[in-house]
């Protein structure tokens, strides 16, 4: 492909840092993703034979989470490492078990709502020439459970990450909150 598309700066772009919410599902629940001509996801086909397994919402402490997509070029190839990091304040059996369950999935799809109200669909690679997509086997990465030390300055918390390698930045999801099967 040898196309160059112009980039025009908006007068006041929506560029607020951070993420608001995550939704995660096991890859096996997603049968098909439909893309439009502008490479956005316009439909999702779910396997609903086991209805308990759909996207699960993951809330976290405000302004602690990020979605980073680090691009590197390796000779003629491009790789984007997608990392989602979030903090769960306080240590509890409920959150511990939820994190253990999340860690039990070796292939995740994650929808990320950022603080500029963009929805990113992480954990897949989309080939624009063949118009085919595949799962990236995104899974949890490094994390911690930490009581911390100073009650006047710190808090006890879990930190969790979800990491995957994709062919490019995550495509955008057009169905909003209402279209996420939870």
């Amino acid at each position, binding site marked *: 492909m040898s196309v160059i598309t112009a980039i025009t700066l908006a007068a006041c772009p929506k560029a607020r840092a951070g993420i608001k919410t995550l939704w995660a599902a096991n890859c096996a629940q997603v*049968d098909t993703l439909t893309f439009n001509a502008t490479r956005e996801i316009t439909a999702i086909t779910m396997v609903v034979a086991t209805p308990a397994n759909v996207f699960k919402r993951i809330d976290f402490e405000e302004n602690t989470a990020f979605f980073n997509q680090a691009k590197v070029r390796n000779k003629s190839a491009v790789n984007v490492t997608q990392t989602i990091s979030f903090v769960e304040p306080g240590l509890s059996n409920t959150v511990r078990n939820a994190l253990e369950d999340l860690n039990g999935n070796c292939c995740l799809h994650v929808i990320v709502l950022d603080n500029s109200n963009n929805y990113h669909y992480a954990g897949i690679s989309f080939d624009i020439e063949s118009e085919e997509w595949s799962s990236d086997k995104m899974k949890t990465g490094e994390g911690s459970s930490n009581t911390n030390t100073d009650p006047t300055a710190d808090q006890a918390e879990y930190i969790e990450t979800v990491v995957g390698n994709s062919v490019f930045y995550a495509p955008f999801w057009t*169905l909003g909150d209402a279209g996420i099967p939870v």
Partner: protein
Amino acid sequence: MADVTAPQGAEQTKGFKVLRQQDGLVTICKAGKKVVFLNHGSKDVDFPTKGNTVRPASQELLKAIYDTDESYAQLIEAPKDHKAPWQQGK
């Protein structure tokens, strides 16, 4: 003689079909500005979102989805004589 029991426009909503007909598959997509659930099978599906039961897709729903966006032609086949709004001028 015309069938007076048929609703107006019924002729335009015949012949749409889901390309992948399979029980246990549900697509979440849009019909106009509304998010809708498209059942690919012939049986009701209990979809957990807000306790919905998703019935097999009607012709009206298939047409509404198909007309919404060109990408939905990957999901639904329209009758040959149907022209969606996104096909106007093509």
